[in-house]
């Protein structure tokens, strides 16, 4: 009986082993792409091991392409021009590229695999994106689900950025984590305080990064981030400005307000902050302080579920319908938005309807 069991197991294991060997050989001979040359902007040349995505091959060589989804093909931020060697356009890339972009050879670098020599063009400012090592210095409880996170930069010691830009933070492994991810977060500190990075992170149920930050990250933990990225910063003009934010979307505006106050900005600014109940409001006192220091700035928290907060005497409902009432001259107004995709879409739509066409936001997909 025992002999029979052993024979069975050996036969099965033997067949399995042979098949596994076959697959290893196939992988070695077929999936092996050798060394490939990446030529960037017709000047810089890199030699990389073939078989990886363009995004990863570049980041291994310290060139950091923006990516909010960490290479999964769901954010569309990693676009760049591939003039040669990118292979055919993949169905996973099509939803994120317009017809014009496709005709200009734009590809999603997280989907393009480097299999042969490849020639690409990337904007010059991406070369100034650095990788930073930092440590967790402090966490501030803003609300029941939102924390302020202060990361002290160790190497390099400071970051050069415009108020409103974002960084990409890497999570670390923790017991329930299925993988390590990188996520985009706007910087909440002003460019003056550039030896650290302040982020505002709201807990997302089952979210890999937010669970890591809220439950597992402790003081003095080492963290890695890259940046600065993004086109979200205050444009130099004297137009009126309308800020719209929800939840952790407060982050860039915190840094922006600190900077604008320091520069004694005189522009007319309306800041609408949307929250479900009064429990979701934070930094209200700081914003009220700015109202005192800057005559043309006003802060308007808007609660969408006032029934839960009977003491609330401020604005209620959703933000987009309120814009029409408060805007002064739509043609001379700039809109700055930061929040959930739903809020961004609804607000942009309303702004365009009332005649505001200079609208800025970062979409984190």
């Amino acid at each position, binding site marked *: 009986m025992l002999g029979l069991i052993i*024979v*069975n197991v050996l*036969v*099965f294991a033997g*067949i*399995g082993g042979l*098949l*596994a060997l*076959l*697959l290893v050989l*196939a*992988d070695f001979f*077929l*999936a092996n792409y050798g060394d490939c040359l990446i030529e960037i902007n017709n000047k810089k040349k890199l030699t990389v091991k073939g078989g990886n995505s363009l995004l990863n091959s570049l980041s291994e060589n310290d060139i950091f392409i923006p990516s909010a989804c960490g290479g999964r093909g769901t954010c569309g931020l990693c676009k760049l021009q591939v003039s040669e060697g990118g*292979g*055919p*356009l*993949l*169905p*996973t890339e099509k939803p994120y590229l317009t017809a014009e972009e496709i005709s200009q050879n734009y590809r999603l670098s997280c*989907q393009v*695999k480097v299999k042969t020599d490849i020639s690409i063009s990337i904007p010059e400012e991406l070369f100034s994106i650095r990788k930073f090592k930092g440590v967790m210095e402090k966490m501030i409880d803003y609300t029941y689900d939102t924390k302020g996170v202060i990361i002290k930069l160790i190497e390099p010691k400071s970051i050069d950025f415009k108020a409103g830009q974002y960084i990409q933070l890497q999570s670390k492994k923790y017991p329930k984590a299925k993988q390590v991810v990188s996520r985009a977060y706007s910087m909440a500190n002003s460019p003056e305080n550039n030896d650290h990075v302040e982020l505002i992170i709201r807990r997302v149920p089952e979210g890999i990064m937010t669970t890591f930050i809220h439950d597992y990250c402790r003081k003095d933990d080492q963290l890695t981030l890259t940046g600065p990225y993004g086109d979200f910063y205050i444009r130099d003009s004297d137009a009126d400005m309308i800020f719209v934010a929800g939840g952790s979307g407060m982050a860039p505006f915190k840094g922006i307000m600190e900077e604008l106050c320091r520069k004694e900005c005189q522009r007319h600014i309306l800041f609408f902050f949307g929250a479900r109940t009064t429990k979701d409001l934070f930094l209200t006192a700081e914003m009220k302080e700015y109202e005192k220091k800057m005559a043309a700035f006003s802060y308007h928290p808007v609660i969408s579920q006032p029934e839960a907060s009977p003491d609330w005497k401020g604005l209620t409902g959703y933000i987009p319908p309120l814009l029409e009432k408060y805007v002064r001259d739509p043609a001379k107004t700039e809109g700055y938005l930061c929040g959930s995709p739903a809020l961004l879409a609804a607000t942009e739509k309303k702004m365009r309807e009332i005649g505001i066409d200079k609208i800025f936001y970062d979409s984190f997909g």
Partner: protein
Amino acid sequence: MDINPFVIFLAAIFTGNILLTYFLGMCSYLSVSKEIESSAGLGMAVFFVLTLTSAINYLVYHYLLVPMDLVYLQYIVFIIVIAAFVQLTEIVIERFSPVLYYSLGIFLPLITVNCAILGVSLFLIIRQYSFIQSVAYGAGSGIGWLVAILALAGIRNRLKEKYLPRGMNNAAISLIITGIMALAFIGFSGVAIIQ
């Protein structure tokens, strides 16, 4: 049995089509037949896997399992052979056609659990085919599956702009079309090739 392998090959396509006569291998058939190109790609992948696994499984059964009196292992052994060959197919496709690899997506590894594959291996054992007959049967079944999925993809393509009652889209109308195609293929059994 002395049936000419070529006759077995033709029979597997027309009179004994693994999909339209035996109704095996329906799930990826129903899902991927939305587009003709990916249907052709998947059909060819299935053909490749079927031909190879029929050959290998015949050899494993007759030269390993039977001599060692381990016939009852046939189910799991056939499955791991199929799984390994599907994985091999994936590596080959990713290498030579990344576009096809991405458009097939999850359906490529799903070939492993396509019951047509295991079905063909088991049928050739039950029918006691020789090696050449087994390979002919596997190849024929593959072509038969390819023909069936291409036919359905073509018909669904024609139906794209047509009006269908609500709820009849996708699976419902595909099953009805498959049934009608199966009826049509029964007509082939009137052709007395195997006699």
